[in-house]
């Protein structure tokens, strides 16, 4: 379907929303003058809330996502470090137990070899 510049211009010609629109605007201005802060929809109220905080929902979402990912990575690292520490402690305990057993066995062998030594 071919179209000329004029046809596109015609399709996008300005449209007047009518007198009802003017009245709505003037009513909202009057309300504002009277001191009431008016919002036209829940959407704009929600938007106003974020503007009040000086934040945008997308920005807040990004920050929350970064914190969540960072937090879970941190937790993973912490658990890994804890497991490694527990492993080291167990290893040390096992070595100590082996040393003790070795010493005891040496002692028993000594006594078995020379029963009169004591």
């Amino acid at each position: 379907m071919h179209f000329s510049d004029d046809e596109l211009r015609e399709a996008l010609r300005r449209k007047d929303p009518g007198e009802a629109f003017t009245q709505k605007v003037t009513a909202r201005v009057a309300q504002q003058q009277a001191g009431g802060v008016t919002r036209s929809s829940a959407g704009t109220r929600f938007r106003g809330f974020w503007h009040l905080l000086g934040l945008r929902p997308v920005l807040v979402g990004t920050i929350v996502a970064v914190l969540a990912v960072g937090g879970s990575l941190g937790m993973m690292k912490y658990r890994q470090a804890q497991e490694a520490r527990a492993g080291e402690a167990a290893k040390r305990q096992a070595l100590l137990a082996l040393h003790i057993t070795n010493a005891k066995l040496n002692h028993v062998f000594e006594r078995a070899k020379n029963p009169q030594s004591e």
Partner: protein
Amino acid sequence: MEPEARMDTALQRARQGDSAAFAEIVREHQGMVFSIGWHYLGDAWLAEDLGQEVFLQLYQNLGAIQSANHLSHWVRRVAVHRCIDHSRRKYFRRESPLDESHEVAANGKPGDSFLSKRLRQTVAQLRDKERMVIVLRYQEELELAEIAELLNMPLNSVKSTLFRALQNLRGKMSRQVKEARYAFF
């Protein structure tokens, strides 16, 4: 009285709190503001909501407006940037065709052709930046340099965006005809 002189007078009166003068300013610019919103956002209700916000902002800034010329420029700039902000905030992607359900009153579209309607629906499917450049060029009939200034874009980017937008528009329109033919036969 010349329209510009009439607006200058209305502006002066509105600054002094004359609500009838402010209504006159709204009446003069509401077509522009509503149409930018409607053609860009593709939703007449949203365009009306956005239009009201623009005029409320104008009311709060009446003191800063120096002339009738400045007034139109200011209103257009605020409408355009509110539309763009809306798209960014809501990740607004238009998937559905332009909403024609909302009745556009009075000075509406007498003799609106099938082609016009199809063109508007296809413009609504373009990318955000392309759509805004098309709206400013063909609805507002702005020069490319004015569009560049309004959108804070280099002139060459405006030229290439407009070229791409028209190419996409033509491509989409031809595809629609082919699909219609295929469906018919």
